[in-house]
């Protein structure tokens, strides 16, 4: 499973970022979302969503073993094991490993809320 | 030809949808214009602000083809 991205269909509405924080943090604060929308304006005038594809690069560089792979392929963070060394953030090729207020990373775990709210086809739950 | 016609707002009453809340399956002779088709099913063409065939803007003079999905806009509520 993955979040399939069609950037040409993205309108920059940020509903995905709104629902992400509502779903995962129970609050309305899109800045803390686990995906980003890059706005390429004024030229060429496109929006590009950046989402987690569970590549595992963050887990690979973590010296504490705090990021591990679940049976369903989703990489999750165990805050208890995290030493807040911060090495993982630069390892993320999409810039979607987020730093929490306690400096512990948090990330997308494929809850699919963004794909449910997006109705332009920019974010789709796919095989 | 057989087409699907969708409409919301005040056009729904005229359209009498049968496929879902907004959609009616309509049969008509090949070569009929959209205006003629609408008249044949009791939808007043004068109440149609705009029409789209498969997503593209068309006029009421458009000749629907078998399988087309026609969307009708009811009178405009404005910008």
């Amino acid at each position, binding site marked *: 499973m993955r979040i399939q991205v069609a950037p040409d269909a993205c309108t920059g509405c940020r509903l995905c970022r709104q629902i992400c924080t509502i779903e995962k943090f129970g609050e*309305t604060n899109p800045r803390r979302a686990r995906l980003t929308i890059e706005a390429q304006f004024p030229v060429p005038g*496109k929006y590009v969503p950046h989402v987690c594809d569970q590549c595992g690069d963050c887990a690979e560089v973590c010296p504490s073993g705090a990021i591990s792979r679940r049976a369903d392929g989703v990489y999750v963070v165990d805050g208890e094991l995290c030493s807040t060394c911060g090495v993982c953030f630069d390892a993320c090729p999409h810039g979607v490993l987020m730093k929490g207020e306690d400096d512990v990373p948090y990330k997308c775990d494929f809850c699919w809320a963004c794909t449910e709210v997006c109705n332009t086809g920019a974010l789709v739950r796919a095989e | 030809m057989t087409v699907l016609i969708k409409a*919301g707002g005040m056009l729904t009453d005229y359209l009498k949808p049968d496929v879902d809340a907004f959609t009616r399956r309509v049969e008509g002779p090949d070569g009929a214009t959209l205006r003629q088709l609408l008249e044949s099913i009791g939808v007043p063409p004068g109440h149609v602000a705009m029409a789209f065939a498969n997503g593209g803007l068309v006029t009421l003079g458009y000749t629907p083809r078998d399988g087309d999905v026609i969307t009708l806009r009811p009178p405009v509520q404005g910008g």
Partner: protein
Amino acid sequence: MVKGFGGSTLRIDLSTGTVARAPLDPAFARAWLGGRGFVAKVIYDEVPRGADPLGPENRLVVTPGVLSGHFAPSGSKCCFGAVSPLSNGHGDSTVGGHFGPELKFAGYDLIVFTGIAPSPVYLFIDDDRVELRDASRYWGQGTMDAEKMFKEDLGEDFEIACIGPAGENLVTFACIGHDYGRQAGRCGIGAVMGSKRLKAIAVRGTRALAVHDLPALKKSTMEIIKRTAQHPNMAPWQKYGTAMFVGWSNEHGVYPTHNFQTTYFERFAGIDGQPLVDRLLVSNKACFGCWMNCGKYSKVLLPGREAVYVEGPEYETGSLCGGNCGFDQIEQVAYVNWLCDRAGIDTMTGGGMASFAMECYEKGLISREQLEGHEMRWGSIEDFEHWVDMLVHRRGIGDAFARGYAAAAAAIGGGAERLTCQVKGQGMSGYDGRGAPAMLLSYMTADIGAHHNRAWTITMDEDLGKNVIRGKAKVVVYLQHIRPFFDTVSCCRLFWGEVDVTAEEHIDALRMMTGWDDYTLDEAMRLSDRLWNLNRAHFLERNGGPGRRFDYPNARFYEEAVPSGPSEGARLTMDDLDVMLDEYYVARGWGKDGNPSREVLLDLGLDACVANLERAGLLGGLMEPLPPVRGERYKPKAF
């Protein structure tokens, strides 16, 4: 702390450079709701009646509104208001995009600017950090260039609202730009901002919004998203935006053509929604939290010029800068859109003013000499471009145009006044009222001067009969209650207008955000009525009266018949206008002179207005017994 709101207000004195923060008063929030409600109350209470709109005592009010930032149908808007340099009365204009939400995330519901900065500044807001900073490096830049510079300097995640050179140079119909192509366009609020030497507001906010019942709000909005995604109106809207109305407007004989000389433009096929989508479209562009994504971001290649990028042209630009100026190619209209956006000019009054200049030139009322050797021909990009340059830099006759329709007509002479298509100084929207009399009444009676956002009536006009004059005023009054409601809560009215999200559903969302369980649509409609009367009182107190004498358009609309197209022969007389106004004032509970009555003002709790108007001899005499809620009772069946 009022849930749903940001929580704080800012008061900025630009003359002294001081910034003061205060908590939002919950009673004030409940009473005036936000958006244009906050604007109306603040400027009525604070701006001295004789103050120059471009002087230090005018207020610039910025307010995001309660729905902004929330997970709700298009909670995206921000209202900018002041005493307008066009009408010399209440002015407000609302912009979409992402600015309002960012102010909410930073924690602000209201910013009031007073004074004039000694040199160009911008307001920097980063959550609690609020500073006035030097803007000299941005001053003189076009709106899109300035926005790009601010984002490069401060961070991509800052939202920017800024003026262009037109606002800096106090062109009275200057606008405020945001998000590379959205504007708070009307009422010349950009000129007020420029008069204060305020180039921009840059804001970043990182806080969560306080919501009374987020799970309920989430559930309700998800249902609305799913339901409206299937609505037949949604897909065409997402594809074409309002540009698709160009063809419709021509077919219904209300499309302004050649400065409203006629109402049908034969060559409209080249400037409709389809050519936009086929030839210009780069991306669909949405406001915050909106899935209707009406914005169309376009790349424009005009022969002999470098590519430009612009959001648009949407309908108003596609009409007032389209057939109204004689442009028949979508590339031309989009280029003109870009010229206006970059300079920071309202494309509506801008397009109308340009077409007025074109007609004056056509009739020999302006000479090539006055145009610095250039012409001002219908459909000429070079002429339009040069005219904008003269306007923005206020050279020669450009200065007269910059001062507005009355000043331009006075400078031009030769009876030019009859050709100024405006009411109270504000250019008409892209619909000619001779094809739709109630639309003309809407222009005549709108509190901010001619603008369709208060009441849009063309379909009702046709339903009741395009030639029918009587019986339409009450529909206008109803619309003037319901449409401004969306500006007060700062969301887009198109969900109500286009895909059947009801006003009650918006009230439900408001309750879920604020916890005001007893808030009703009735209360909101009474607020609309209250604001309407407050703004009328404000206008009269500043301009004198009786109100009726300000409520007429230029002579074109009651002396000329439409010469061609589907409305050919349509003609309104002064008697027709008077019949409509009489009916309107009765429906409002005003006197025949167009002045609000004591009874209505007291009923709405506007005691201060009673005192002020009475002192000035401007109270009207109630003509009929007072109905309980004046506007809502006229709700037509179609709603």
